[in-house]
């Protein structure tokens, strides 16, 4: 699979520097000043939750090339950890932190056996792990089993509070992703993605790097699940551990541009808005659409939206410079 990294030209790289992210951050932070109404705030809130999970997945799936179908485990574990600690009287920030830690711990438990497998075998094992977790959670009496778990709210519901919590988590996720990409770990992950044996020969410990990437990705996804739970106040296993959550978290970075910094954010924007629009009228149609989109992306544009954007930019440049293509 061709990852966006190699195909993104200098234009994208300049565009995706922190300036672009900061501008986006300010725009989203200032949005409630325009009084857009609760529906729009809710839509942006959900999209921010998706951004955090999508950016998290990309650290393992994009940078390190380890495609996982099992991120619903971390979303769900984060959701339940947050719900339980909120009910136990913990503050919002510390519950989210706890959720991230529990999700990271779960990722280590999953990594230990599954990272003995490579590529597609790892991907398929994660389907098994994720589905087994959902079945266990459906039967666990401690968390209410299939009938779900409720947060007892103290005080009035404040939508903007949830909105800014989601914004903070999404911003942290993007910042972590940029830091990882620029660190030694990021280089090690990309080396593993390109050729695991060669990376190992050059002194990278593939197992340890992948374990760390999985834990970071899981922590971000767990926090995303926690933010969602704080808003929804009621969760059930099929909702937060469902296979469609795993699928959503996998599709967003691939649609946007897997392995790039901006791609997962764009993918989550596309997914978040289209999902909300289509979900109401055609509940099944959006997954049909994403399946078709996935097929088209794999066959024609493995770089996703970022890759298409890049090609368009190069095309326009070549045109304007009088056809003198370098």
């Amino acid at each position, binding site marked *: *699979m061709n990852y966006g990294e190699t195909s993104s030209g200098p234009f994208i790289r300049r565009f995706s520097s922190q300036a672009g992210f900061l501008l986006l951050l300010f725009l989203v932070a200032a949005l409630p000043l325009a009084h857009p109404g609760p529906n729009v705030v809710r839509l942006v809130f959900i999209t921010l939750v998706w951004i955090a999970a999508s950016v998290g997945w990309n650290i393992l799936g994009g940078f390190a*090339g380890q*495609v996982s*179908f099992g991120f619903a485990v971390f979303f769900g574990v984060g959701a339940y950890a947050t719900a339980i600690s909120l009910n136990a009287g913990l503050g919002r920030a510390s519950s989210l932190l706890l959720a991230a830690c529990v999700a990271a711990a779960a990722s280590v438990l999953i990594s230990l*056996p*599954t990272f*003995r*497998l490579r*590529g*597609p*075998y790892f*991907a*398929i*094992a994660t*389907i*098994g*792990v994720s*589905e*087994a977790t959902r*079945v*266990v959670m*459906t*039967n666990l009496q401690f968390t209410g089993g299939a009938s779900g778990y409720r947060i007892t709210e103290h005080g009035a519901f404040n939508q903007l509070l949830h909105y800014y919590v989601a914004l903070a988590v999404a911003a942290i996720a993007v910042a972590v992703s940029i830091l990882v990409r620029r660190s030694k770990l990021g280089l090690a992950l990309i080396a593993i993605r390109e050729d695991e044996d060669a990376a190992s020969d050059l002194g990278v410990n593939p197992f340890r790097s992948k374990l760390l990437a999985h834990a970071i990705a899981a922590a971000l996804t767990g926090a995303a699940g926690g933010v969602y739970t704080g808003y929804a106040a009621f969760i059930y296993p099929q909702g937060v551990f469902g*296979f469609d959550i795993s*699928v959503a978290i996998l599709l967003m970075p*691939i649609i946007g541009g897997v392995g790039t910094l901006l791609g997962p954010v764009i993918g989550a924007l596309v997914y978040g808005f289209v999902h909300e629009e289509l979900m109401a009228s055609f509940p*099944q*149609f959006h*997954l*049909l659409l*994403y*399946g*078709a*989109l*996935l*097929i088209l992306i*794999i*066959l024609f544009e*493995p770089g996703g939206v970022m890759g298409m954007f890049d090609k368009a930019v190069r095309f326009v440049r070549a045109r304007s410079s009088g056809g003198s293509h370098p």
Partner: protein
Amino acid sequence: MSAADVANLFVSALLLAGVYAAMSVGMTIIYGVMKIVNLAHAGFLMLGAYFVFELYTRFSIDPLLGVLLGFPVFFLIGMGIHWLMIRRIPRSDQPTLASLLLLFGLWLVLQNLGYLIWGSSDRAILTPRTLSTFQFGPIVVPAVRLVVFGVAVASLAALEFVLRRTWFGRAVRALMQNSDAGRLAGVNVERTARVAFGVGIAFAGTAGGLLAMLYPFTPDFGGSFLLRAFVIIVLGGLESFAGVAIGAVILALVETFSILAIPAGYQPAIAFSLLVLALVVLPEGIAGLWNRRQRWT
């Protein structure tokens, strides 16, 4: 528990294993020839079920005949999909993520097409056979299970014959063992792969029709069977047809006898846990275990 109960469980496990083998063999062919993990298998199991269902409810065609009619239909669908998509992704001796994600996308498309066409309510195929039983001494066998087992075993025998006795079968086996050597020996890789993909999908559709006679189904029908099929072919060593039979028997026995030890709610988790366990502990399948032992001694 009496001896008769154990015998009953054992017989029902063996009957289940026949269907499981028919359901998994399509994945093995496709994996063996193309090194592609066919995640869309689940979608074709589901389509096979609805194909038989539609023929039965609209034209009152017997489900058994429907299964036979499904074989050529799904064969052509499979060849079409190979021509349309599979041949466009880079060929490799290792399974690639691109092929995995492509077929996953196809699964999403098929599953949600199913939801659009048939809705999400449970369907079942009920014939006069459904409730009748045979009795052999203390052992009671539902007729439909016996019939389904018979069809599954017959289709596997036919496949075995084709693989052993025809040029296409030899080409398939050559590509499974060593695709470069096969190419040197004059095997048309592209065409063999297309036909093999068609056969794999045809077996998926047939198995879907057989499973539909045993279980109620929705458009989400294939998912759990896909993972079961994967457990079976991993246990069987991924590329061996005899391994598929062994894997199917093991999974069927484990699932059937686990009702004695594991609460019903946790039953679906058995296949999933076994999948992870098989991948991690037995990457070369049961046969690999045997080979390793031989190397040690």
